[in-house]
């Protein structure tokens, strides 16, 4: 078990170390400075902007920026929905996959447009290669870029002094897509192919096994999807079981690289904040606060999974390698637990072990990660969520010392607090109310005690399955307790709506907030100002996140995972 902790620590340290470099590169891209990749990727940027008909010098205020963002997403939604519902008639479909039914398509496209990647279908049986390329990986590029663009605009707003313009949405979107994600995805894809991830246009292979049976082996343009799925905190797998599948994650090395991909851009966003607002110490405080929540979760999660399932230990088998139901031998329990925590504190949602089969408290960690949803967080959006908590922490701290709350020299007033509260309170509402409704529907339609209905597991674990589904939707995460039979009208529509609202409310409200802060004059900091870049503030922020972010979920945590843990002896 010792080596697994070494591997976990090595992975985290390597990611932290490299985030400094990528943060610097991202700063250069979004502030228009030269980088070493320009000769290849700047011509692509120019081409895209010319075809799109955007004047790169044209600036937008927060309202125009938001309108461009929303309309681009509506158009992408319509285009990709059309493709999956007609995929049977389109090319690149060697396995003869049929059209996606409209209700499932509503869920799938809403899921991928919102960067959630919740999947109520299974890739190998539900999507043609054409859809994997032009719907799935297309949306994985551009929606990740949408989040980054929004975050960049918000950072500009925070850094600005009497500023009304936040930048140009299409310029930011294009740069994020083709100068950040494209080069990284090409690089990672090459490594994945080397490690054994398929990249072929041929249909499923048919094998005659050693014992003479027939085995059909699904494959496809997997490598191209896997890299951007990980980098863009998308998480939508090529195959149903995601990165547990040996074709999506063939070796311990590919697992290490994919784990790196999950957090590298979210971590680099914090570094970029430091450079862009010219306050590296603030970035260090935020980064350290995030680590102070992330690391204890990882250690606890690894310990839970390494400890195994007591009910299986009781049967006398050798469980010294930890709880292995739903896990793969080549990764082991430790690296699976690291992934489970990492994929949920960021809004990635890919898995390398089936979360439904995690130990009760090991499975509580992913839930906590998504309830907070801001520890590194999704590309762009997790970072935006963090800024909302920063504003709230500033407000709380300001109240405690009896001063007007200020952040970066800007007064935080009632209007800004209302927007921050809206963004903050939406999240628990979008999780708890739909979960309550689902419980009611389940209890009244299924035959409790007789059948499990759409649940795979009885008792408190069944409750956790429903809770997890809405948590994952509201956090735009996309992982699931996959035992839930979720391809039904109720689940497709309800989670689809939760995903859509939970994507755009927490983007537009902070954009408005940033627009308001940007327009205010920055007053010089004095000895009496609240210093946001101090350890004291970091501790306040940590406490605000833990208390405000987690306390309201305490009752459901007790009903689900904690009850199951106490019962499992």
């Amino acid at each position: 078990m010792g080596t697994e902790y070494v591997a976990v620590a090595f992975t985290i340290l390597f990611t932290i170390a490299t985030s400094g470099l990528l943060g610097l590169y991202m700063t250069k891209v979004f502030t228009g400075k030269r980088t070493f990749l320009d000769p290849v990727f700047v011509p692509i940027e120019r081409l895209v902007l010319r075809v799109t008909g955007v004047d790169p010098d044209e600036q937008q205020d927060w309202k125009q920026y938001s309108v461009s963002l929303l309309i681009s997403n509506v158009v992408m939604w319509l285009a990709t929905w059309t493709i999956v519902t007609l995929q049977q008639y389109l090319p690149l479909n060697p396995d003869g996959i049929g059209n996606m039914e409209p209700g499932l398509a509503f869920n799938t496209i809403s899921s991928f447009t919102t960067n959630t990647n919740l999947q109520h279908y299974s890739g190998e049986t539900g999507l043609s290669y054409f859809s994997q390329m032009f719907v799935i990986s297309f949306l994985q590029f551009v929606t990740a870029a949408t989040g980054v663009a929004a975050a960049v605009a918000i950072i500009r707003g925070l850094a600005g002094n009497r500023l009304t313009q936040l930048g140009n949405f299409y310029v930011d979107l294009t740069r994020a897509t083709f100068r950040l994600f494209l080069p990284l995805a090409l690089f990672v894809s090459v490594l994945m192919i080397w490690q054994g991830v398929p990249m072929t246009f041929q249909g499923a292979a048919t094998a005659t096994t050693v014992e003479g049976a027939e085995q059909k082996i699904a494959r496809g343009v997997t490598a191209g999807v896997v890299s951007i799925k990980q980098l863009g905190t998308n998480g939508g797998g090529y195959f149903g079981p995601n990165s547990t599948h040996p074709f999506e994650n063939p070796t311990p090395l590919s697992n290490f690289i994919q784990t790196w991909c999950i957090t590298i851009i979210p971590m680099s966003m914090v570094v970029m904040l430091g450079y862009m607002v010219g306050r590296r110490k603030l970035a260090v405080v935020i980064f350290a606060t995030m680590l102070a929540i992330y690391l204890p979760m990882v250690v606890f999660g690894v310990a839970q999974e390494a400890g195994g399932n007591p009910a299986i230990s009781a049967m006398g088998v050798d469980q010294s390698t930890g709880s292995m139901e739903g896990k793969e031998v080549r990764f082991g329990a430790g690296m699976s637990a690291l992934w489970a925590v990492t994929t949920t504190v960021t809004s990635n949602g890919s898995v390398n072990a089936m979360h439904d089969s995690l130990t009760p408290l090991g499975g509580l960690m992913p839930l906590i990660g998504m309830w907070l949803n801001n520890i590194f967080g999704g590309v762009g959006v997790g970072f935006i969520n963090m800024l909302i908590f920063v504003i709230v922490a500033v407000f709380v701290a300001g109240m405690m010392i009896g001063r007007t709350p200020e952040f970066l020299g800007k007064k935080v007033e009632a209007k800004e607090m209302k927007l921050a509260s809206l963004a903050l309170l939406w999240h628990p509402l979008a999780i708890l109310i739909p979960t309550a409704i689902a419980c009611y529907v389940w209890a009244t339609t299924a035959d409790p005690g007789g059948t499990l209905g759409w649940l795979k597991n009885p008792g408190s674990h069944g409750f956790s399955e429903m809770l997890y589904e809405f948590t994952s939707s509201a956090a735009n995460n996309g992982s699931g307790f996959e035992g839930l039979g979720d391809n039904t009208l109720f689940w497709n529509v309800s989670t689809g709506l939760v995903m859509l609202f939970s994507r755009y409310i927490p983007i537009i409200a902070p954009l408005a907030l940033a627009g308001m802060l940007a327009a205010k004059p920055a007053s010089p900091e004095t000895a009496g100002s609240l210093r946001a870049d101090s350890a004291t503030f970091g501790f306040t922020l940590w406490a605000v996140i833990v208390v405000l972010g987690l306390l309201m979920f305490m009752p459901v945590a007790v009903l689900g995972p904690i009850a199951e843990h106490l019962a499992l002896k």
Partner: protein
Amino acid sequence: MSKHIRQAIAFTVVSMVLVGLYHVVLWGFASAVFPSQAEGSLIRRADGTVIGSRLIAQKFERPEYFRPRPSAADYNAASTSGSNYGPSNPDHLKAVRERIDAIVKEDGVQASQIPSEMVTASGAGMDPHVPPAAADLQAARVAATRKVDASRVRALIAEHTETPTLGVLGRARVNVLELNLALDQAFGTPVAAQEKNANAR
């Protein structure tokens, strides 16, 4: 507003085309540099027919072969899945109990010798590996059925044991399909399987 819509449509079209191009470039690279990985790490017979993929578990039921981990998908590599059983699910615990009993009976071992990997379903149902201890557990049965010395079978296991990458990443493991192919190569193909193969082709 019409300008917004025009820009959105143009951006969607041009970036879709470029993402498509990205896949084509990767496919070209993969076919040229890593052709075996690109098509799914397939293992072929001398006549070119596919035996399977070295990354994908296949079903082994005959006593002459090592068994892979249990699969919730019954080794169907066109529809993969985990069991999604929660740790407290009575059905799950019953399935584990039955697997333990089956192994105890077939391999004549104590429950405490069985690594939990052999009684729990893998994540995708396609795990190609077992821990070395799980292979060792089956060595005596495989050797006895094939009427060869157990030490020769254990030597093959040792030869096919992969160690953690860089000493820390991942765990020691044995690829079941490759080990079973090595068995056939060293000690011959069991007669019945040979006939079935010939019929299947």
